[in-house]
């Protein structure tokens, strides 16, 4: 089997399990209150982790490149309460524009 097939089937099957396990086994059952407190913090913590790794990580190195300028533009757009699509377009056009002139 080729590398690509192992990746598609292996990552695919693993992800289906990861996504389906808790909903299938724990549906409709209340979590203990303390666990709910933990879950409430999970979203912000993981989203922030996704933001910084997608902006500053290049493999295992930390870099500052046009993606950082894109994030700064997105921050401004969010502060101005712009719609999601505008936030994304601001980031993409800033990073793309910066690459075009450098």
């Amino acid at each position, binding site marked *: 089997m080729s590398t690509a097939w192992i990746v598609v089937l292996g990552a695919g099957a*693993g992800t*289906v399990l990861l996504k389906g396990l808790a909903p299938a086994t724990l549906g409709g059952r209340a979590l203990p209150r303390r666990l709910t407190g933990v879950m409430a913090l999970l979203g912000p913590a993981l989203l922030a*982790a996704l933001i910084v790794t997608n902006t*500053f990580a290049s493999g*295992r190195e930390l870099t500052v490149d046009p993606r950082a300028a894109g994030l700064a533009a997105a921050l401004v757009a969010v502060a101005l309460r712009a719609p*999601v699509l505008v936030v994304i377009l601001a980031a993409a056009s800033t990073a793309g524009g910066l690459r075009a002139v450098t």
Partner: protein
Amino acid sequence: MLMQRTTYADGARRAWPLAVAVGGFGLTYGVLARQAGFSELQTILFSLVTFAGSAQFAAVSIVGDGGTAVAAVAAALLLNARYLPIGLSIAPWLTGRPLTRAAQGQVTVDESWAVSHLGGGRYDPRLLVGAGVSIYVAWVLCSTVGVLAGSVLGNPETLGLDAAFPALFLALLAGQVRQRRLLLAALAGGAVALAMVPLVPPGVPIVAASVVCLAGLRTPREPGAVEPARLVEARP
């Protein structure tokens, strides 16, 4: 406290700007996967089964750089390990048979999960499915378009599409951090991830950031929080 009844269409409506953005990534993914040596069938099947953009990007880029299948699968599953706790967070709010609930879990991605969050750890399954299915359709369709139109599009970095990812997550985060402790969790999570980047393989820093939410063990009961069991009973 009775919630206003939401519909699948509400979820789709709230998700459409996200679906457009995700579609852009799908396009990029289709192009990059083909460049990395994935066949048309493999590229589209990967989107159909896995439905997790960042994991698919990671796996495809590792294979494209000559990495092993094991490394690519490990990176993808580490990036997707967050769906275990995410699944835990939505599970109490899902109804129906185990297979139905598992299917609802499959359309769970960061974006649909964020859209369905009502605050205080409460989730709306209709918003989740409405948003999730919309984003899924956009993801698979645009992956396919990317595969077919790949050579025409050029380098996605030139278009700044890589910078769109963090912007999307930032917009989602901004809608979530309405309380001080949530903002603190976000800052701590970001700091942990940043500190881990040089130390561990890609994907692991995101998983590591989840330790931050253990601080929630000390959270006092929220005044507005509703127990899942009571919420289900309150529904007609």
